[in-house]
């Protein structure tokens, strides 16, 4: 089928199959892809509102046994650069987040064998006791699988315990490309196969949680595999309707074992536009300004995105791989309005919370993103002594000196 005919299908609101989508992705001019994606966005969001959330990406530990070769953030068990955040450190970060109008933390971390399920439950309970209305958007599917393996409990039971402790929603990290050939090459098949990732999301949706979905492209996958990823997400969304949003970003190669080069800005805009067209059952697509920078991030709003993502406050993972863009609320709103949209704050469920906070009260400007810990800060939180460690180095660290 030629591009014109496929374009007509998109304009008529018909669903594209893999063959149509591939032709469009490979052959449509970038302008046309953007035009089609923008038309789909406008049908779903006719009010020209673009949303964003004020939250903070907190990475509670960088210790990880997964060893994905595209990751520059992790440290091996026993590494002197490994860290685990203490509860008090996290509370401090939440205080800072609330001070600038934040409503949740996105809490993700490495697969640390020395943090048992009880540590997460206690952390979540402590957060909820202190900040009852503050939301925990936490633990991507591979982390849930890691906890399932560590605790020898099935995933639904792990999710139930986390929900009981305060988990509000699940972020879509760790999806990379949901094709096992790719996952094996990226050394991430072990942390979660494509089916396992999808099944955690299925279980989370069944348990009543809403989640997001992501795609990290630009490593070793083919165009067909990018599409397969999108189609698998679309199929699960047909089944559960539990995804609130989709976010795609390009692999960031700096300081990674995989190395190589980053996909280009045009590739990002084309991939975003294709995602908007293919994922016809997803309401919201976020712009990944944190990997693409503010300018291409803003241009995303013309290529299918209806959300500028998160003010973020803190970010550690893509920064470790070379991306270090920062936009505070003032800058995000300026970009949204400059593109001709109306900026509204939202929560994880995409309920509109109101107008920009900085227009209601003074908020300090934020010109660079915070980090999990200052460089070299690897002190062991006291409360860790209450939990058993599995690794030898973890056990050694938890011996209280006389």
């Amino acid at each position, binding site marked *: 089928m030629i591009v014109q005919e496929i374009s007509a299908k998109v304009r008529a609101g018909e669903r594209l199959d893999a063959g149509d989508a591939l032709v469009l992705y490979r052959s449509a001019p970038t302008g046309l892809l953007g035009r089609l994606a923008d038309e789909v966005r406008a049908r779903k969001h006719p009010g020209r509102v673009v949303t964003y959330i004020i939250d903070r990406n907190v990475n509670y530990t960088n210790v990880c046994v997964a060893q994905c070769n595209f990751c520059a953030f992790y440290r091996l068990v026993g590494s002197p650069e490994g860290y685990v955040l203490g509860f008090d450190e996290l509370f401090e970060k939440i205080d800072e987040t609330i001070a600038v109008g934040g409503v949740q933390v996105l809490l993700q971390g490495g697969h640390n064998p020395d943090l048992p399920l009880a540590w997460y439950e206690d952390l979540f309970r402590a957060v909820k006791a202190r900040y009852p209305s503050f939301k925990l958007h936490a633990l991507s599917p591979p982390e849930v699988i890691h906890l399932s393996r560590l605790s020898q409990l099935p995933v639904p039971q792990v999710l139930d315990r986390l929900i009981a402790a305060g988990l509000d929603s699940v972020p879509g990290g760790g999806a990379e490309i949901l094709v096992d050939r790719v996952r094996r090459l990226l050394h991430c098949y072990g942390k979660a196969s494509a089916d396992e990732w999808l099944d955690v999301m299925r279980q989370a949706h069944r348990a009543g949680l809403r989640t997001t979905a992501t795609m990290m492209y630009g490593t070793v996958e083919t165009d067909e595999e990018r599409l397969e990823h999108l189609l698998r997400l679309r199929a699960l969304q047909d089944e559960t309707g539990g995804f609130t949003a989709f976010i795609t970003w390009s692999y960031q190669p700096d300081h990674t074992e995989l190395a190589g080069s980053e996909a280009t800005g045009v590739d990002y805009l084309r991939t975003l536009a294709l995602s908007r067209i293919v994922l016809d059952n997803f309401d919201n697509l976020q712009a990944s300004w944190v990997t693409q920078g503010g300018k291409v991030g*803003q241009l995303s709003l013309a290529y299918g995105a209806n959300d500028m993502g998160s003010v973020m406050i803190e970010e550690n993972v893509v920064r470790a791989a070379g991306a270090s863009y920062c936009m505070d609320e003032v800058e995000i709103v300026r*970009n949204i309005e400059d593109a001709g949209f109306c900026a509204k704050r939202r929560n994880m469920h995409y309920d509109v919370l109101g107008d920009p906070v900085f227009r209601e009260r003074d908020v300090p400007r934020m010109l660079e993103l915070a980090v999990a810990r200052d460089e070299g800060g690897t002190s062991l939180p006291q409360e860790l002594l209450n939990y058993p460690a599995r690794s030898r180095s973890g056990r050694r660290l938890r011996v209280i000196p006389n």
Partner: protein
Amino acid sequence: MPVTDAELAALVHSHDIIDIGIRADDARRRRHGARTTFVRVADVPSDLAADVRVPPAAREVRIVGTPPSKAAALERIRAVVSAAGGAAVTGFSLADLEQLAAREQVTLRALLEDMRAAGLELVAEAPIDRLQNPRRSIEQVNIAGLALARLTVHRLESADLAALFHEVTALQEWVAVIRAFAPLPRTINRSVPTTGFDDVKRIALARLLVTNIPSIQVDWSLYGPKLAQVALTVGADDLDAVSAVDDLSEGRRRAPLEEIQRNIRAAGLDPVERDGRFEPIAR
């Protein structure tokens, strides 16, 4: 097809950058097809105390900064020419040279002729919003036997784009020697930078409105690969200031030449390396 005044007003105030971009891309392809030129440039400070280092990959050696005196400028040009290995030597902002000529109490033409005699081939840039007398000064460049590498915009962040591009078009009608126009401002306000929409619209409108200058140019190092690459899809056809330092510390795939060619191809275009004299480099 020329843009009417009514269309122009609509374009300038439109947020539909996809539509503007598609129109500009059509105009660019009618003129240049998929051909996209780029130039690898080695910057050399005008400060006499600084070393002159010219990487072998440089196709243009550009003297940057404000020369303190005519004598210092000429000495610097001679030193750079002797180190350039045949690459085109360009340098200076024409606005700075206007001021230097006034300070030295010589005519601009005399200053430019001396620079040419010292080995300068092209004046690196003429910032339209800083020149005291754009027509006359650019004519002096031509009369002195030099060429102008590019017409630039120094700041003009909130300028009336239509008025700016009409001024550029009128200037070219008069002087007829401008090869490239770089419409994105050279000086960026760090606290309120231009947005992606601003930049894309400015590039696209320049392509649509300034029809008598062959190349619409973007500075690769100033605006970065992502924005510069997107600019190629909305009217730009030439990339300036690609690094001539073939630093392979990140591996061959990330060397500047590979990066630029990969980005141009990923935009669906054909890369052609050129030199500082705007001549394609045969391979």
